[in-house]
């Protein structure tokens, strides 16, 4: 069948639609002028201002603490939950409930957590954001690992037991390596989601401990500056690196198994 060249038009148009805003943002971050909308020549000036902005630095540190902490917790708990769901229960309801926070509207989760923290009279701060992000990050890790588990061969675990391994050794030596690509993908997902999460963080953070998205939000309220563009470009770089690293590492671990 002859392929019509015309079909390529909507194909490329889709990509233009997807990436034009991002390209504009990146270009504007190198703008020499003050306006975030009119390009006046190349400069790294805004990256310099960005580095000197104490509020942004503080926000970035907060965000990294929350992202790393919640990713570690979410990965460990999510993996264990996935294994429990796949191997030790047949309840579809529990299955669905374990992954529900992933699709729950952030607003609902945010308000719910805020009410919960108020009820147990917990203070708000980085710890409350960290735990909140663990909740939804865990749901994503569970979903990814759970999918991998359903495709994993249970006879491997039986073979390990048959050869004299205790259930614990079997889990560490056989189950975990089988799940590694899934766990890694889930962890990176939890990490990237946490880094730019706004709604839940907005509800559960204390005014003294804003995360980066909250800092950006409060800056944008007074108008977009090229500084924000520079910051967004850097965030973009982090996300891209995360995606590429995930792809590389899943391919690596998959070729090993």
């Amino acid at each position: 069948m002859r392929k019509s060249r015309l079909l390529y038009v909507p194909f490329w148009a889709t990509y233009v639609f997807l990436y034009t805003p991002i390209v504009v943002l990146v270009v504007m971050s190198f703008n020499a002028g003050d306006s975030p909308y009119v390009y006046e020549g190349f400069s790294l000036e805004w990256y310099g201002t960005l580095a000197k902005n104490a509020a942004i630095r503080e926000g970035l540190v907060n965000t990294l603490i929350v992202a790393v902490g919640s990713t570690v917790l979410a990965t460990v708990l999510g993996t264990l939950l996935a294994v429990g769901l796949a191997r030790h229960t047949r309840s579809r309801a529990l299955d669905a409930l374990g992954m529900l926070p992933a699709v729950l509207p952030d607003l609902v989760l945010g308000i719910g957590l805020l009410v919960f923290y108020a009820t147990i009279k917990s203070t708000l701060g980085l710890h409350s954001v960290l735990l909140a992000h663990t909740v939804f990050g865990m749901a994503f890790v569970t979903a990814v690992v759970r999918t991998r588990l359903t495709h994993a061969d249970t006879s491997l675990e039986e073979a390990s037991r048959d050869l004299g391994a205790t259930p614990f050794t079997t889990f560490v030596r056989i189950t975990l390596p089988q799940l590694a690509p899934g766990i890694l993908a889930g962890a990176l997902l939890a990490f990237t989601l946490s880094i730019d999460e706004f709604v839940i963080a907005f509800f559960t953070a204390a005014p003294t401990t804003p995360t980066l998205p909250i800092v950006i939000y409060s800056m944008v309220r007074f108008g977009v500056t090229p500084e924000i563009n520079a910051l967004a470009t850097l965030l973009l770089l982090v996300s891209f690196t995360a995606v590429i690293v995930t792809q590389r590492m899943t391919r690596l671990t998959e070729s090993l198994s």
Partner: protein
Amino acid sequence: MLKITGVSRRFGDVTALSDVSLEIRQGEFFALLGPSGCGKTTLLRILAGFESPDEGTVTLDGDDLLGQAAHRRPVNLMFQSYALFPHMTVAKNVAYGLERERLGRAEVRGRVDEVLQKVGLETMAGRRPHQLSGGQRQRVALARAIVKRPRLLLLDEPLSALDKKVRAEMQLELKRLQNEVGITFVVVTHDQEEAMSLADRIAVFNAGGVEQVDAPVELYEHPRTPFVAGFVGANNIFEGRACSAGLAGEELGILPGDSGLPDGTPALLAVRPERIRLDGEDKGVLGGEVVDVSFYGGISHVSVQVSGRRQPVLVATQGATQVQTGSKVALGWAEGDGVLIPQ
């Protein structure tokens, strides 16, 4: 050595095993043979420790086996899918079970090398399972199981994943290894030829129960239940009642058989295709018309339509046969070749 007494297992409404009792001797190559879904795999999983029976006991050399967790039993299972660990090399796969016994590194290495040599894979020690052929994977799975020197080795459909040529090779290999290591083997299979050529004794399973336990030749020549007569090898089966000369068929008259049954008992008469003679037209027990001749090289199959019987009678002859489709023939067999089975 292994004593299974009154073992039953139900899954919901399905009875996988009902009151199974078997005794397996030291050093024996024992086969559990039956169609899929007959419960043989469930029994194997009970012996390995992945299932527990609802009723019954299993003892190994007098020790209760069911009370021990799977990883503590002196029993190893070779999985149908082989279940090799994909993230480990061949040597690591084989060493895995020994490392669990906390043996010294030198001893583990020595035993791994020894067993890999035994299965002819010493050059493959550094490979990963996906780099091996089906036959090689099977050898690794076998090596991994026997390196533990279990008292009992269970094999779940060990040859089913191999193509025909490799299968014949591995069949001999399995027998040789079993002789060499002297471990009691229990193999599960649905392939009766495989069971016959491998095993010292065979237990035929049907619908969760044991039909007959016997040596292959005995099983073939003296099937004791209608199921065994139909399942093991090809058979011509006639219905009727026992009489002193054999079987009295309703439409076929008296058919010769080795009757030990009281007269008048409803019975089946089973005659192997290779025991039936093609006689001249006026002699013989049954007369009929040849409807098909198939030549297989070493043997030929002749199908003879006998009036009064719906299915044609199958006759196997050595080499090429002289009879042609459409010719009238008479069929005969010696009294000792007709086996009577009570219905």
